[in-house]
């Protein structure tokens, strides 16, 4: 069971109050992009054992989307941060580094 804190309304709830929205920080490749780029955007996903970044929606609460960083092994939630970001904030990355030295996730570390 994940305990998530919504950065939009500040409420802390368990995962049944939220809805998972898949991998975070995808770069969209639409019309005009190469087939390889589109395939990567459409189908290729991280499947890490450890640190992972995801999109979540506070579906039974304020209804807003946000990002969450968690560990797929222990279900520890490292933190949540607003949806209006292109990559995880530095302070959260530092915090994760303290707990999981040497972690990486795609191009992020």
């Amino acid at each position, binding site marked *: 069971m994940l305990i998530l804190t919504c950065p*939009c*309304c*500040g*409420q802390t*709830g*368990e995962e*049944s*109050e939220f809805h998972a929205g898949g991998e975070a920080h995808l770069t969209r490749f639409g019309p005009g992009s190469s087939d390889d780029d589109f395939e990567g955007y459409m189908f290729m996903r991280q499947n890490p054992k450890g640190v992972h970044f995801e999109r979540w929606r506070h579906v*039974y*609460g*304020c*209804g*807003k989307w946000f990002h969450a960083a968690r560990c797929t092994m222990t279900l520890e939630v490292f933190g949540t941060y607003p949806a209006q970001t292109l990559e995880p904030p530095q302070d959260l990355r530092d915090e994760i580094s303290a707990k999981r030295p040497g972690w990486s996730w795609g191009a992020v570390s």
Partner: protein
Amino acid sequence: MSKTVTALNGARFADGIADVAELPMQGMITLRGDLGMAALKKAVKSNTSLVVPDQGQVAQNDAYTVAWMSPDEVLILCPYAEVQAIIAKLDKALIRAHALAVDVSDARAMFQVAGVHARAVMAKLAPVDVSERGFQPGMFRRTRLAQAAAAFWVADADTFHIICFRSQGQYMFDLLCVAAQKGSEVGRF
């Protein structure tokens, strides 16, 4: 004008550990916009005499309740007959702003759970700490009760008010009745 009725016609269940009742027609206005905007704060204040509540809070006086729903939304509860007049005043006050006031009175059902075991009834249904320390008067929580979306707050000591979609009114009432059935005290609160 047609006669307005609530979802369950004022259903009531008083045969359990807490008193569950559907509340009469309640005026509800959804107001969306930048909650920090001076014009919006002023419009809410002049219509309800209440200050726009902080995140996760609810403000109430005898006639009105203003609840914080999300970073860009408040819910105004007012007497059913006043809804159109208040919306007209809000529209006028916010004509230059990016804001929206909508009458949602008939889209909702509202319930009350009262009695010394009211907290136990709520605790059975919502994934929320509803102990006296965890959920105090003045707090407002949008969450789920079993499988239905709902919002609730403490109206006064030992009384919870619950808002849900009107279409889920029967489900909500049944749910509350089961959670309040005789002999089901938890003894934790």
